[in-house]
């Protein structure tokens, strides 16, 4: 979605020129649903560290060119913001006030930090959105979604039931992703990738990968990428299907094996190995074979193709 300026509907209605209903523009009795604004700021070093935690709602972390941290947003009823900053390290924590926890309440926080900050964010059900921060990111959520634009620095992102949406900058970096039941969507990354899922699907569109390790139990993996000439590309699946597109048919040693799933790689088909079970193997070499592509599956299907 293209961001635009928006406003509360009720506030908008208050300025409505078309339909002047005298004395009845605004509804009263907001009582129980009152939200509380927060606003904090402090100096922050360009290479400082930000630690964020939020129980529910949304955290948006945005990089800017100032050596300053600014925190704005609204807390839900019963929530409290703890903020501290000592120049190199800032901490923003949203938690429940003593003896109060209401799963209906949310805190929506916008944090602006120097774009070369290191960010560590952990949430329970709050979503995490990070943009314009070019250094190391560690983002973890139990059930919230995680959306991040990443650059050349290391990235470690995980969630149990949230969805991951990661967009790279086509700069080589080291990325570790972990999902359990949510899906992961990754685009425009390069470098080293480790991705793990239990039942969520992983969808990757990458540039050039060097070290790749993907583990899935039952989630499907769909990937399109090129490989470096000395790449090591390894995928293990129990029952997730693997649909992989390696652009240009990389010059590599290929070792593909599936216990009970089908294998098709660049129009070659796996062949049954032995009399003890249905295992299919497919081993071949393309070109000088500088890279290694190893894919093992118990019952998931393996499909390997050119882009």
């Amino acid at each position, binding site marked *: *979605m*293209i961001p*635009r*300026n*928006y*406003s*509360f*509907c*009720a*506030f*908008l*209605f208050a*300025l*409505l*020129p*078309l*339909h002047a*209903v005298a004395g*009845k*523009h*605004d*509804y009263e*009795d*907001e009582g129980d*649903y009152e*939200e509380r*604004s927060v*606003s904090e700021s402090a100096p922050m070093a360009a290479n400082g560290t930000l630690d964020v935690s939020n129980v529910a*709602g*949304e955290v*948006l972390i945005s990089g800017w060119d100032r050596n300053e941290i600014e925190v*704005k*947003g*609204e807390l839900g009823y019963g929530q409290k913001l703890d903020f501290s900053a000592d120049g190199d390290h800032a901490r923003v924590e949203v938690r429940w006030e003593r003896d109060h926890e209401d*799963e*209906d309440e*949310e805190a*929506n*926080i*916008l944090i602006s930090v120097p774009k070369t900050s290191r960010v560590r964010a952990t949430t329970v*059900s709050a*979503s995490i959105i990070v943009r314009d921060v070019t250094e190391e990111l560690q983002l973890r959520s139990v059930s919230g979604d995680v959306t991040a634009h990443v650059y050349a620095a290391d990235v470690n992102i995980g969630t149990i039931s949230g969805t991951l949406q990661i967009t790279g900058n086509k700069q080589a970096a080291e990325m570790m992703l972990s999902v359990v039941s949510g*899906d992961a969507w990754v685009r425009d990354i390069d470098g080293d990738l480790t991705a793990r899922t239990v039942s969520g699907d992983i*969808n990757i569109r990458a540039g050039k990968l060097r070290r790749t390790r993907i583990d899935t139990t039952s989630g499907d993996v769909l990937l399109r990428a090129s490989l470096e000439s000395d790449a090591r590309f390894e995928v293990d699946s129990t029952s997730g299907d693997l649909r992989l597109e390696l652009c240009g048919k990389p010059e590599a040693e290929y070792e593909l094996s599936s216990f009970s799933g089908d294998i098709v790689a660049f129009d070659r088909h796996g062949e049954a190995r032995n009399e003890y079970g249905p295992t299919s193997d497919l081993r071949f070499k393309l070109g000088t074979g500088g890279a290694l592509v190893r894919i093992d599956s118990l019952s998931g299907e393996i499909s390997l193709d050119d882009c």
Partner: protein
Amino acid sequence: MREPVDQPTETELVALAQGGDHAAFEALYRAHSGRVHALCLRMTCNAALADDCVQEAFVQAWRKLSSFQGASAFGTWLYRIAVNEVLGVQRRDRRRVTHLQVVGEEERTEELEYSHSLGLEAGEEMDVEQAVRALPEGARNVFVMVGLHGYSHEEAASALGVAVGTCKAQLHRARQLLAKRLIP
């Protein structure tokens, strides 16, 4: 005389779309976009946002289509995706208000676009639409989902992330506020 061509059923369209058939998915879009748009429009109160939500909902539905097992009607499943999109927009919207100046001209333009998108002239129906639009967000969400689009309290509560009791209270509040405004 030509034999009439049987139109595919929705189940058949879904199966075709799950196989990658764009034309089948377009047919599903044509069948459901009006209701999805009505839901998004009344919850966001903004024509442009509603269009974005509709578009995003159908794109997400396409991506998740393989997970649709038919336990619910396709429309029900689709509306859940649309509601999630709207709620995400509402959360982002709340945050932007804290640090953005409201521009009067822009609001009037948005208001015109919203009214125009309803396709109504000034009159009784416009009164009701404006009354719905003026509801507080939480009450409006529940009213639109339960009161207008047939969600059960349990379904709406689950989608909105609130307790069922809260959902019922919000609907009651919405109806009280609407009655106060619309019924002399």
